[in-house]
């Protein structure tokens, strides 16, 4: 709505403020009283960064390791999901009925079954076979045994766990690609028919039409939903702890299991996720408005 927003407070504003304050006060008052729990916040920082006596330097501990893995996974599978999703989105708008039906089936299956099962299906029937065929396991272990592996480790973490990481990336990307595909489809379909007709009427081929006219415009439209989807991907990445990828949520589970710091650990993790996700959404918003110097 194109309305000028009011500048003064309404009585409802005061009411809402009062409710929020009361809510926080209740929590504050009762947190020490009712809650039968010994807070041990002072232990948490050690699990983010710790001082390594032997090496004499700061090293990442469980939570930070998990966070780094989460970020790695998110980046790689984000890129892969974008590629797969774009193909899927194009397939969804294809004029060929067979291609449309296949794409639709893929989407519906992914949309309607629980993520755990999706992970199992992709892991066992796809990425696991792929890794076996490519003999990635031996290859990665070979690299892990070499001395000079700093670069490898920077990109992929522990090379022994490389096959897991790759599986995780593939599984997560396949999982998210269905949703990316829907976004891309919506973007393509939001381009007015006239644009495509204009492109055709100057004699462009289908690929040129897609590449120079449809995609550049669709991309601009899908950027906001895509960035939301990327944030979802970060949050969803915890499901691949099922296939031995040690990301943030799983590291937290381990931490809680080992130390019983159930609240501190989960709240710390909630904060880490919030910082990561909210930071990303601010970043994307910045990029969007930054890219707006071109009209429309």
């Amino acid at each position: 709505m194109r309305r000028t927003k009011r500048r003064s407070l309404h009585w409802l504003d005061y009411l809402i403020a009062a409710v929020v304050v009361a809510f926080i006060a209740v929590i504050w008052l009762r947190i020490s009283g009712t809650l039968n729990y010994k807070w041990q916040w002072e232990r948490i920082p050690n699990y983010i960064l710790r001082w390594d006596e032997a090496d004499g330097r700061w090293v990442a501990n469980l939570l930070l390791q998990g966070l780094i893995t989460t970020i790695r996974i998110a980046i790689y599978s984000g890129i892969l999901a974008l590629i797969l999703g774009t193909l899927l989105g194009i397939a969804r708008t294809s004029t060929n009925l067979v291609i449309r039906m296949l794409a639709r089936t893929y989407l519906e299956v992914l949309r309607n079954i629980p993520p755990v099962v999706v992970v199992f299906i992709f892991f066992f029937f796809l990425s696991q076979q792929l890794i076996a065929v490519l003999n990635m396991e031996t290859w990665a272990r070979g690299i892990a045994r070499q001395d000079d592996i700093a670069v490898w480790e920077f990109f992929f973490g522990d090379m022994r766990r490389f096959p897991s990481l790759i599986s995780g990336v593939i599984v997560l990307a396949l999982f998210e690609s269905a949703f990316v595909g829907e976004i891309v489809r919506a973007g393509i379909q939001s381009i007015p028919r006239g644009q495509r007709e204009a492109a055709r009427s100057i004699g462009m081929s289908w690929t040129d039409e897609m590449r120079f006219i449809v995609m550049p415009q669709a991309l601009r439209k899908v950027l906001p939903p895509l960035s939301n989807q990327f944030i979802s991907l970060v949050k969803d990445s915890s499901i691949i702890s099922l296939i031995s990828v040690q990301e943030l949520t799983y590291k937290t589970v381990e931490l809680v299991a080992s130390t019983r710091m159930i609240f501190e650990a989960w709240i710390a993790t909630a904060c880490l996720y919030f910082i990561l996700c909210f930071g990303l959404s601010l970043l994307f918003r910045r990029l969007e408005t930054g890219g707006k110097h071109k009209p429309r």
Partner: protein
Amino acid sequence: QDARADLSKTSVIEQIKEAGVIKIGLSVFVPWSMRDKTGELIGFELDVGRKLAADMGVEVEFIPTAWDGIIPALVSGTFDVIISGMSVTPVRNLTVNFSDPYAYSGVTILANTAMTTGMALEDYNKPEITFAARRGATPATVIGQLFPEATLLLFDEDGAATQEVLNGNAHATMMSEPSPSMEARNNPETVSVPFDQTFLATGEAFAYRKGDPDATNFFNNWIGVNWANGWLKERNDYWFKGTEWADQVDQ
């Protein structure tokens, strides 16, 4: 002879030797396996796994995996064997193979003092009594056998189950010593260990893929030998009876 050769060639033992590494699946559970202050894995299972690898002359690799994924990962070959405090039951045995037990961990009851004062052991076996336990671990099995009438709530990890008892949402939980005593010491006003008694499970064993007689033979004998030479007993006592390891972990 062909069949026999095939069988031994496809045995997991053969694969381990060939790869030069044994991959062991586990999921964190105090004091079987846990993260110490530096984030490294320690625990009874880690000792077992390292010794096993050393005896086979291969490297060892521990792969912590979420509980839900552990059996599928075993089946698909992500790891060679699960050493994760799995207690043997006939129903499970229909799905995977188990070795002989390498531990007979005793579990004790940790109860919410206020909710259970004056209750005898039989009083726990009632529908209105709620137990909390970690899904798929030995205590859950034991509770099912000892208190079939009681309500059993299953959680993803031990901490959550303990917290239920602390918050008064469950009457009791069961855990391998020394955790219950440590919890009781940390929260003397709320929880206690009402019975000295240790309840024995059927024993914990290695789990591995079906159809592998060589592995059965090897693992059973390895366990047998290490029982006989007292190594398993000694490690067991270290982790389950004593608390010397406690200061490595933030408990």
